[in-house]
């Protein structure tokens, strides 16, 4: 065994300032309901399947050329622990020379995996990396193993509701009385219907990798589509659901995402490297931002993070033609839309439906948003910019702004630098 790296580039890139970063490709497992199809399937097996499919779909990229593997999980124990980024890379059959690490930013884990490896590519320390996220909420119930510091409550550092996500969603309804339960239910029903339509049009299936499901009682199965959607949902039906977080509250199982299992992954690369390897470029990263808000209204997080990201790159919300926002709760999406003056049923927002229908396996959802946006970019070459955004527990938001390579004005950064693309 040789101890020297045999994958060093022929020409040293010592002088590269900022590289143009592209989203090469993304895939995900179908999402399952906690306790459902994946009840006896391991979390690491889910994300291993995603990594292998990414490499299979992109034969131009040799496994040894992957510079790093970042994998997110909100609960980092058991089959989501053991330095998941490294252990899943080994399980996926990547060579031992490929390093890996784990990432955690709760719901924005996969998004943070993407922005972190993208940053490493942008500054030129990596050429190609895999970012992924997984959450098996059936095996790892939300909050499992947490040990909150007693100071949080003793010193009133956070509202007691801050650790119950449903309660923070109720808080948002309180803060913005215009966000009614009726609007939330209508939005939720529309999410279900848009998802059903996207499935009918074959927009979701191409980026799903069928996953074998283990059941000791029933034998092996194969999950090929998301398990959670309820296409028959009606606003009337939603109105009858109980409000588990508060008597006479507004947040129900119907206008929130569920408890889900699933994994997502993406290849992130320097644009010139993607071109040189003949890899697809589905989106180009413009910028990203994370921002904090009060933990008791964590759903408001996407508002400041999106504003911050727009400010970074000098774009305005009017220039954003497509928005993929995670639907942890309908009310949190509505708060975002109201802030930016966008209608509840605007076709630019979650055109393929969202987490209320397909589910929200916490740390994996960020890349699902990107997969959807990439699909919509392909169908809408007239749109130049889009964004993916999501709220994060303990009061944060994350936003990534993307450029559409299918747009006629798009100019590839052939020398790899951002300046070349400007």
């Amino acid at each position, binding site marked *: 065994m040789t101890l020297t790296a045999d994958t060093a580039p022929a020409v040293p890139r010592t002088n590269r300032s900022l590289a143009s970063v592209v989203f090469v490709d993304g895939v995900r497992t179908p999402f399952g309901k906690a306790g459902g199809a994946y009840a006896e399937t391991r979390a690491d097996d889910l994300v*291993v399947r995603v990594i292998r499919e990414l490499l299979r779909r992109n034969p131009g990229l040799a496994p040894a050329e992957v510079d790093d593997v970042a994998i997110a999980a909100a609960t980092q124990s058991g089959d989501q622990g053991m330095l998941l980024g490294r252990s899943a890379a080994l*399980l996926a059959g990547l060579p031992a020379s490929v390093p890996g690490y784990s990432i955690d930013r709760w719901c924005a884990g996969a998004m943070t995996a993407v922005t972190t490896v993208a940053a490493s590519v942008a500054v030129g320390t990596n050429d190609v990396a895999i970012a992924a996220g997984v959450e098996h909420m059936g095996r790892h119930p939300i909050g499992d193993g947490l040990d909150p510091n007693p100071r949080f409550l003793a010193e009133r550092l956070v509202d007691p509701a801050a650790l119950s996500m449903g309660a923070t969603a109720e808080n948002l309804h309180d803060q913005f009385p215009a966000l009614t339960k009726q609007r939330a239910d209508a939005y939720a029903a529309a999410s279900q219907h848009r998802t059903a339509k996207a499935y009918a049009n074959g927009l979701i299936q191409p980026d799903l990798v*069928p996953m*074998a499901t283990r059941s*000791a009682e*029933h034998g*092996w*199965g*194969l999950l090929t589509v998301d398990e959670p959607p309820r296409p028959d949902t009606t606003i009337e039906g939603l109105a009858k659901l109980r409000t588990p977080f508060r008597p006479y509250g507004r947040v129900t199982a119907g206008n929130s995402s569920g408890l889900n299992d699933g994994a997502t992954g993406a290849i992130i690369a320097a644009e010139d490297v993607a071109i040189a390897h003949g890899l697809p470029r589905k989106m180009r990263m413009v910028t990203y931002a994370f921002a904090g808000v009060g933990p008791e209204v964590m759903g408001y997080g996407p508002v400041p993070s999106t504003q911050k990201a727009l400010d970074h790159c000098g774009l305005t919300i009017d220039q954003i033609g497509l928005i993929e926002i995670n639907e942890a709760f309908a009310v949190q999406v509505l708060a975002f839309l109201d802030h930016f003056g966008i209608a509840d049923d605007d076709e630019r927002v979650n055109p393929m439906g969202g987490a209320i229908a397909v589910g929200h396996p916490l740390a994996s959802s960020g890349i699902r948003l990107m997969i959807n946006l990439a699909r919509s970019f392909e169908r809408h070459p007239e749109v130049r910019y889009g964004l993916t955004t999501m709220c994060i527990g303990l009061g944060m938001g994350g936003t990534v702004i993307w450029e559409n390579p299918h747009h006629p004005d798009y100019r590839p950064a052939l020398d790899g630098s951002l300046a070349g693309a400007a």
Partner: protein
Amino acid sequence: MSAHVTVPPFPGEVVTQAHVRIIDLPGAGPAALITLDNGEDHSRPSTLGPAGLAALDAAIDEVAATSGLVAVAITGKPFCFLVGADLTGIGHVTERGAALAMARSGHAVFQRLTGLGMPSFAFINGAAMGGGLEVALHCDYRTISRGPGMIGLPEVFLGLVPGWGGAYLLPSLIGARAACEVIIRNPLNQNRLLKPEQALGLGVVDVAFDAADFLEESLRWAAGVVRGDIEVHRAEVDRGPAWQEAVAEARQWAAARTHGATPAPDRACDLIEAAASADRDAAFAAEDEALADLVMGDELRASLYSFDLVQRRAKRPRGVPDAALARRVTRIGVVGAGLMARQLAWLFLQRLEVPVHITDLDQARLDAGLGWVRDQIAEQAGRGRLSEREANRLRGLLTGSLSIADFAGADLVIEAVAEEIEVKQRVFADLEQVVEPTAVLATNTSSLSVTRMTEGLANPERVVGIHFFNPVAVMPLVEIARTPSTDEATLATAFTVARALKKSAILVKDAPAFVVNRLLMRFLGEIMRAVDEGTPVNVADRSLDPLGLPMTPVNLIALVGPGVAYHVAAQMHSQFPDRFYLSDNLRRLAESGRPSIYDWSTGAPVPDPEVMALFSIGRPAMGDPATEAEIRSRALAALADEVGRMLDEGVVAEVADLDLAMILGAGWPFWLGGMTPYLDRSGASVRVRGSRFLPPGVASVPA
């Protein structure tokens, strides 16, 4: 029972269920996926008894009743496909009719996989043996996981034939020559199995996928086949004269190994031969008849008994103290650097990976011993079996010196010096001065009294016999001999070390030559007696051919070395002159330094004229020199007598330990059941002892 299974469940059958799931075969349509799962973890692989067959039959009913399916596929629980028929149940089959029904039931159920009007797939996700592989062979297509699972048709190894379709389907798929490899040669070659890539190379399976997402990729491939996107190309099978030639060669090869002592290889050859032209129904009917005959034969029953000894009893030796009593062994001493000692040092080094120190009185011999071990390390590294890092580690652990004082700190010291009681006594007395009072002192003696070696020792309780067989790396047995003083901790340590060395150990009383050598010497004495009395060497030597032993007596003497053989024979003769014949001609051979009575220079065993010139051949006390049959009868009688004595003396706890010892220590074949089932079968035990060693049904067809 079900429509196609006409046998009641075996008592206590661990039933392999067949779960049916309707899945979406991506881009192709709905398919039925059958999972075979006995509900146990990977340490207990799935097998098929009558209830398991009925479960599969019911699953196929369910598939047949589902409309609109485009394919049916069958796979196993995690890490295991299916390892064949439930052998534990065969002991319960007492009538040929039931054996025949079991054979027919397997065919009836498996054949349904091809009659469903849709393509059938087997996804071999792990071990697939015997009936397990046959299930897969009945399917139209096969995928295999590149994981660690092995596949094969080991039936002939046990004394059966692949009678659930394998003897017909496999040659039809891959040709007679390759099929003979899988069905005849591999089973008779230490039951060799195929790795996934080998199975792919032979054409047993159509495609191999990585283990990581084997099932998903198999389903994707199956969808491609169903859609017509993937075409499966298989090599044309040559049904010309080459077919019969291949079978004839295999038949001859097997006969040379077994001398007809087990009927299975011949029956399997018959079936493969007929597969060239027989139609499917006729071929399957012939398989049924062969299976029924063999199941009702004592050779198979003895084999199953042997299999159980090796699989179970060898892993849980009887009369062994709790392993928790064992002392930690982190440093080993080997006294002596001779041929046996250096092999022991290498084994300890390789398996325990702890410091191993060797001493010898002679610098040249010490250097030779150390050099030999280092050569072994280099050879293993050269063959890629050891990484350079591991090789460096082992080299660093090996030391040697001329001083026994350097054994201070050793937890276990084993001596392998000259087989002289005074020498060994002096070694142990010297060792006591250097090692801790709890260090285990072991002897590798093959024929001396361990008890006598403890005379005068302050701590005789830590002395134990650990008898290895030559060649040490290959022979799987060790005999652990306790003296009246050996304590539990010492015994537990010896067994724990044996297990770590990957040897099977049996507990024996400290008695002359323990088990294996005592029995071998007793019958070798009868062979040499016949030679001395005028029976031609070749005649005496082939007298035991009908047993199908791994080597003839004359070749066994050559393997052990005439010097060692004579030494042990002399030891035994001096103690029991009435029973252990001491051949003067064996002494002459040993003193001559010739390696064998035979000269192999022509490629065939011919009595070496130079050796024969040394021999002094006399005459029997009365009558003519003994014939083959007479010698065989005497040898078996001698064995039956000696076995009886060993049981009376309590050398081992049970007769099963003697059989296990002969299987693992002397390589005696499964179809003899080790030894006592054959002594019972041949009538020797009743003739000599007046009774059988084992009741009918234990290792024979029930009465």
